[in-house]
C-alpha cells in the first residue's frame, strides 16, 4: 500500500494499537521550556513518577528569560518570572535531564536550538508543550505541540497515547515573486483558507516552491502550520536537509546507511491524502496582517478588506478599505521561533544597512539563539542593526508575547516578524502587524508600513 511520509513516520514509532483506535507512539525526544515544561516536571514529581529515560529530555530556557543585553542568570523579563527559571532549573537537575540554561552557550528558543544542535534529526518523533513544535517537521521529523499533562505522560512512559490525525497535502508550485519569503507563503495560505483551514490535519508541504526554500525557510513555513489549525507539518528531507544536519549535528557521524534511510522518508507516488490544497506561487505577494488573527492578512499593497469584522478593526484602530501602506508605526520587532534565524536577520540587515530608524519607533532585534547571535556578530550584522537604531537583545522568545513587565505601550502599532497578532499578544492594547523580517526592517526605517521597494535609495555610507 502506498504510504505518505506521515504514515511512515507514524508506523516507525507505533509501539502498538490500544483500545479506542488510539496508538502508543514512542517519542524520541521531549523538549521542555520553563513556561509549560516546569509545571510538567513538578506534576510528574508530585504524582510519584520518574523520568523513564532522562537522556531523551531537554529543558531549554527561552520564554521568560530577559532579553536585556548583559542579563544575569536568573533575570526574567516579567515580574515574578525568575521562579519559572529557577524552579525549572532545579527540577531539571534533579530529574537528570539535559539542561540548556540561560547562561549555556547554546541557549535560545527551543525550536531554533533543537535543529542547531542535532537534538532533532530526520525521522525522529519529537514533542514539546509548545504549539510551535511543528517547526521541526521541516527536517522530516514527526514533531508536534502537546499540553503539559501529555509531556508528563511522555516523561513517565516514553510514549504518547495518540489517535492518528487526518492528512492534508499542501502543494506550492512555481517561482516566488521577488520579495516573497516562506512567511508570505504561510500568511497567504492562512488568509485564503482561514485560521481553521488546516482542519487538525497532519500537513505535508510539497511542490517546487517548497523544494526551492532553504531549510530555515522551511522551518518558518512549518512553524506557521499551527496558526492554520494543523496537527503538525512535515517536509520530506532532501539533500539540503542532509547537508544542514551534517553541518549542525556536531559529533554525529552520519553513516551512509543513515542517510540512505533518511532518503526513504518521502511520500509514495500513489499515496492518498484526506485533503489537498494547491497554491500557485506566482499569486503570492509580500503579506502583512491587518487584524487580530493570522487569517486577517493581505498583500502589502492592499487595503483592509471591506467586510472586515468591526471588533478586530476597533482593536487595531483601522477602518474598512483603509490602505495599510503609509500607516505610522511605533514599534518593530525581529526575532521569534518563526523568523529569528540567521537568514532572517540577514534579510533584515540587507534593508537596514546604511539606514536609520526614526526617533518615534522603538526597534528591537532578538536573535533566536546564542548560536544565531554569534554567527550574526561574526558577520557584522549586529553592527548594522545597532547603527540603524535597533536594540540587539539576548536570545529568547522576547517580545513575541507579553508576559507582564515592560513592552510597547497600549494602542501602539508594531510590525513584527512573529507568528501571532492576537489581541494583547505583545502587550495590552498593542496593535501587532505580522509580516516578514525584511518588511519589518523596511517599516522600521520608514517609520510607517511599507515594502522594501518603497524605500528611497540609501545614502552612500562611508566605510
Amino acid at each position, binding site marked *: 500500500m502506498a504510504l505518505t511520509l506521515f504514515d511512515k513516520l507514524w508506523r516507525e514509532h507505533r509501539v502498538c494499537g490500544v483500545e479506542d483506535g488510539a496508538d502508543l507512539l514512542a517519542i524520541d525526544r521531549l523538549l521542555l521550556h520553563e*513556561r509549560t515544561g516546569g509545571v510538567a516536571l513538578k506534576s510528574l514529581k508530585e504524582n510519584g513518577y520518574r523520568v523513564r529515560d532522562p537522556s531523551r529530555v531537554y529543558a531549554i530556557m527561552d520564554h521568560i528569560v530577559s532579553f536585556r543585553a548583559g542579563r544575569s542568570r536568573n533575570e526574567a523579563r516579567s515580574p515574578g518570572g525568575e521562579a519559572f527559571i529557577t524552579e525549572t532549573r532545579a527540577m531539571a537537575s534533579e530529574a537528570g535531564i539535559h539542561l540548556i540554561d540561560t547562561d549555556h552557550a547554546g541557549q535560545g528558543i527551543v525550536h531554533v536550538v533543537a535543529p542547531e544542535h542535532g537534538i532533532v534529526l530526520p525521522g525522529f518523533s519529537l514533542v514539546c508543550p509548545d504549539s510551535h513544535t511543528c517547526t521541526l517537521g521541516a527536517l522530516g521529523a514527526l514533531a508536534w505541540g*502537546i499540553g503539559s499533562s501529555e509531556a508528563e505522560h511522555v516523561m513517565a512512559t516514553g510514549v504518547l497515547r495518540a489517535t492518528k490525525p487526518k492528512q492534508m497535502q499542501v502543494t506550492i508550485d512555481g517561482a516566488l515573486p521577488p520579495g516573497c519569503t516562506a512567511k508570505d507563503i504561510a500568511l497567504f495560505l492562512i488568509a485564503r483558507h482561514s485560521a481553521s483551514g488546516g482542519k487538525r490535519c497532519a500537513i505535508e508541504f510539497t511542490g517546487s516552491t517548497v523544494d526551492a526554500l532553504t531549510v530555515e525557510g522551511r522551518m518558518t513555513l512549518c512553524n506557521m502550520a499551527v496558526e492554520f*489549525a494543523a496537527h503538525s507539518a512535515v517536509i520530506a528531507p532532501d539533500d539540503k536537509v542532509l547537508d544542514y544536519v551534517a553541518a549542525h549535528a556536531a559529533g554525529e557521524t552520519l553513516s551512509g546507511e543513515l542517510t540512505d534511510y533518511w532518503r526513504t522518508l518521502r511520500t509514495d507516488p500513489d499515496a492518498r491524502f484526506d485533503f489537498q490544497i494547491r497554491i500557485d506561487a506566482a499569486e503570492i505577494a509580500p503579506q502583512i496582517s491587518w487584524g487580530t488573527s493570522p487569517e486577517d492578512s493581505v498583500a502589502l499593497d492592499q487595503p483592509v478588506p471591506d467586510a472586515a469584522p468591526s471588533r478586530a478593526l476597533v482593536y487595531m484602530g483601522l477602518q474598512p478599505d483603509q490602505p495599510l501602506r503609509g500607516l505610522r508605526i511605533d514599534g518593530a520587532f525581529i526575532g521569534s521561533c518563526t523568523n529569528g534565524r540567521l537568514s532572517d536577520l540577514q534579510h533584515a540587515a540587507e534593508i537596514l544597512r546604511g539606514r536609520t530608524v526614526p526617533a518615534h519607533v522603538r526597534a528591537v532585534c532578538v536573535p533566536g539563539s546564542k548560536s544565531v547571535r554569534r554567527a550574526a556578530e561574526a558577520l557584522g550584522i549586529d553592527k548594522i542593526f545597532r547603527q540603524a537604531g535597533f536594540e540587539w537583545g539576548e536570545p529568547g522568545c522576547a517580545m513575541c508575547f507579553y508576559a507582564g513587565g515592560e513592552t510597547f505601550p497600549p494602542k501602539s502599532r508594531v510590525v513584527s516578524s512573529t507568528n501571532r497578532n492576537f489581541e494583547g499578544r505583545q502587550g495590552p492594547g498593542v496593535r501587532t502587524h505580522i509580516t516578514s523580517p525584511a518588511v519589518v526592517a523596511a517599516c522600521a526605517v520608514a517609520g510607517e508600513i511599507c515594502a522594501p521597494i518603497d524605500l528611497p535609495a540609501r545614502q552612500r555610507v562611508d566605510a
Partner: protein
Amino acid sequence: MLKPLLRHTGIAAILMRDNVDTDQIIPSREMKRVSRDGLADGLFAGWRYTAPGSRVPNPDFVLNRPENHAASILVGGENFGCGSSREHAVWALKEYGFRVVIAKSFGEIFHGNCIRNGILPIALPAKQVERLAMAPAPVKLQVDLEQQTLISSQDPDRFISFEIGAFAKRLLIDGLDPIALTMTQQDQIEAFFSDDAARRPWVYSAG
C-alpha cells in the same frame, strides 16, 4: 483521579467569536507561578476586567452578566482554543467551574488538554452552535456524554447528538489517569524500545 463526567446540566455562557485563542482565555501575564492552580482569577482577564491588572469587572463581558454567574458550559465559535499550547487555559476554565465547552471547531492541543482535565469539548456543526447561541438567556443545557446528546432548555424537544472519540469518552466518564493506564502496557513498551535500539541506534546514541 479526575472527577468523572457522565452527565452535566448547567447554564451556558455564549461567547460567539471565532478564533478565541488561549492568550485570551488566560493571558500569559496571569500565569504567575509554576502551578496548575490559582488561574481562575485570570480567566479571560483581558476581556473580563476593565483594565490590564485590574480586577474591576467589565459589565459587558459575557461572564459578568448576572444570568451567567453560575455558568458551567461555554459556547464558542470556530477554532476555539487556538494558539499557544498552554494547558493553563484549561486549568483556568476548570477552576472557574466550566465542565463543558461547545464550539464549531477546536484548536487541536486545547482539545486534548480539555480531555486530560475532565472538561468535555463538544464540536457541533456551525448552524447548531448558532441556534444554541441565539436562544434567549439564560440557556440551560443538559449534556449526556454516555448517549452523546445534549438538549437546550429553550428547545426541549430537540436532541442534538455529538461525536467524541472513544478514548476521550472513556477518559472523561471513568476519570482515568492516562499514565497509569499506559503503564499497564509497560512490557510491550520496553520490548519496542529494545528492538528499536537495534533498528535505529542513532536515536539512542545521540544526546
